[in-house]
C-alpha cells in the first residue's frame, strides 16, 4: 500500500455494497438484484489497483459468504478471480467507452456466476433456475448508474488527496 493515500472511501463503498446484497427487497425484484459487491469491487480494483487488491477481494468475499450463509470461500474465490482479471487488464479497461465497459462487466459477472455455479455443482447444491443470469443482466444494465455514483465518490476523495498516485 502506498503511503499518504486513503483507502477508506473504497472500503466503505464495498461494505455498503455487501450490505445492499442482503437488503430486503420486494419478492418481484429479488431475482433482479444486481451483484453489488462484485460490481463495486470491479470498479475500485480498476480505478485504485494499488489500494484495493486480492486481499480486499478475499475479505469482502468472506463477508458475503457469511451474510448469505454460503459455503465459506465461495464468493471469496470467485471475487478473487475476477479481481485478478481486472487487475491485469485495468489499464485497458479503464479507458473503454461505456458500452465496451458494460460488455466487460457482463463478462466479469458471468465468470463470477460460472465459478459460483461450479462450486454449487461440486457441493451438491441444486441450481436455482435462472436467477444467477438475471442478476448478471441487471448488474450490466445498472453499471453506468453505479459507476456514476462511485466516480463521484472517487473524484471527491482524490480532490482531497493532492499527492494521489495511481
Amino acid at each position: 500500500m502506498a503511503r499518504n493515500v486513503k483507502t477508506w472511501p473504497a472500503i466503505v463503498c464495498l461494505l455498503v455494497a455487501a450490505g445492499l446484497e442482503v437488503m430486503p427487497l420486494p419478492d418481484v425484484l429479488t431475482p433482479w438484484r444486481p451483484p453489488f459487491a462484485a460490481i463495486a469491487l470491479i470498479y475500485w480494483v480498476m480505478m485504485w489497483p494499488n489500494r484495493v487488491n486480492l486481499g480486499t477481494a478475499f475479505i469482502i468475499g468472506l463477508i458475503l459468504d457469511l451474510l448469505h450463509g454460503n459455503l465459506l470461500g465461495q464468493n471469496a474465490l470467485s471475487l478473487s478471480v475476477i479481481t485478478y482479471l481486472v487487475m491485469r487488464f485495468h489499464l485497458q479497461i479503464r479507458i473503454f467507452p461505456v458500452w465496451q465497459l458494460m460488455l466487460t462487466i457482463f463478462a466479469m459477472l458471468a465468470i463470477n456466476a460460472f465459478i459460483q455455479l461450479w462450486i454449487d455443482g461440486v457441493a451438491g447444491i441444486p441450481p436455482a433456475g435462472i436467477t444467477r443470469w438475471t442478476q448478471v443482466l441487471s448488474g450490466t444494465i445498472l453499471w453506468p448508474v453505479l459507476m456514476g455514483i462511485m466516480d463521484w465518490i472517487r473524484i471527491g476523495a482524490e480532490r482531497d488527496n493532492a499527492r494521489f498516485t495511481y
Partner: protein
Amino acid sequence: MAFTSAKHETGPSRGTSAGLRLIVIAIVCILLMFFDHQNQHLVSARQGMSLMVQPIVFLVSSPGRLGSWLSDSFTTRRQLEQENRKLRRKMLEMSADTQQMETLKTENVRLRALLDSTAKLDDRVLIAEIVKVDMNPFRQSILINKGSADNLTIGEALIDADGVVGQITRNQQHTSEALLITDLNHALPVEVLRNRLRTIAVGTGEVERLSLPYLPRNADITVGDILVTSGLGGTFPAGYPVATISEVRSAPGQPFLEIDANPSAMLNRIREVLVIIPETPESTGNTTEQAAVDTTENATEPAD
C-alpha cells in the same frame, strides 16, 4: 503478463506476485469450502466470524425494524380496538378448543398406555423473530434472532401459527439460519391426515409450492387433503400441519403421480416463528435442561 502490469504500476513489485497470490487465495478458499462442507470443522470459526458481520446485518435490517415500529406506534385507536376485538374472539374460540384438549390428552395417554406404547411428550417452543434480511437468493432460507446462546441446536424445527416453516441449519451466537421447507434441498416426511398415507414432501424452490413425487398412481390422495408431519426421521415432531394438496396430475406412462401442495405456513410473510425444542428421551441432555431454565417466552404464557 505479470511483468507488463509491474512495468506500468508505481507500486513496488506487487504485479509480479499477483498470480501467485491468486493461487494461494484459491487454495485457501478451496480448503475453507472443503472443511465448511464437512460442516463440523469450521463451526466455531464460522460463529466467531459471523459475529463480525453482525453490524452489517443490524444496519441492513434496521429499516425493516423501523417500519414495523412505526406501524406499531402509529396505529389508530380504532384499529387497535378492532384488532383487540378480533383477538378476543379468537381467544374465546381457542379456549373452547383447549377445554376439550385436556380431556383428549388424558384420554390419549390412557389409550397409549393400553396399547403399551410410549407416551407422547409435550414439545416446548421458543418464540423467535425473523431478522429482515434477504439471505441467499438461490436458496430459501431465513435468519432468526435466536441462536446458540438461547440453546438452539441444528436440526430443530420451526413452525408458525399455521404450519411447519423449516428447520435450523446453522446457528451462531445470537442468530440462526433456517432452511424453509420449500427449498430445493429440503424434504420432509409427511402423512395424509385423512388416511395416514405416508410420503415425502420435497421443496421446489418456489415459496407457494411443495411437491410429492413419490406416490404411485393408485395412491388414495385428492385435492384438499391435509398433510401433517409424520414424525419419521426424527427432525420434525409428528402432527404439525405442513400443506394442503392443491393439484394431482397423473401423466400417462408415468409410474408416479405429480402432486403439488400449498404450504400451510405463510412462508413469505412470517414475522415470528416458534422453534420447537423436542423433549424426546434421546435429546433430554444437558442442553435442553438448561433451556428449560432460561426460556422465558413460553407458548403457555398467554393462557390467562
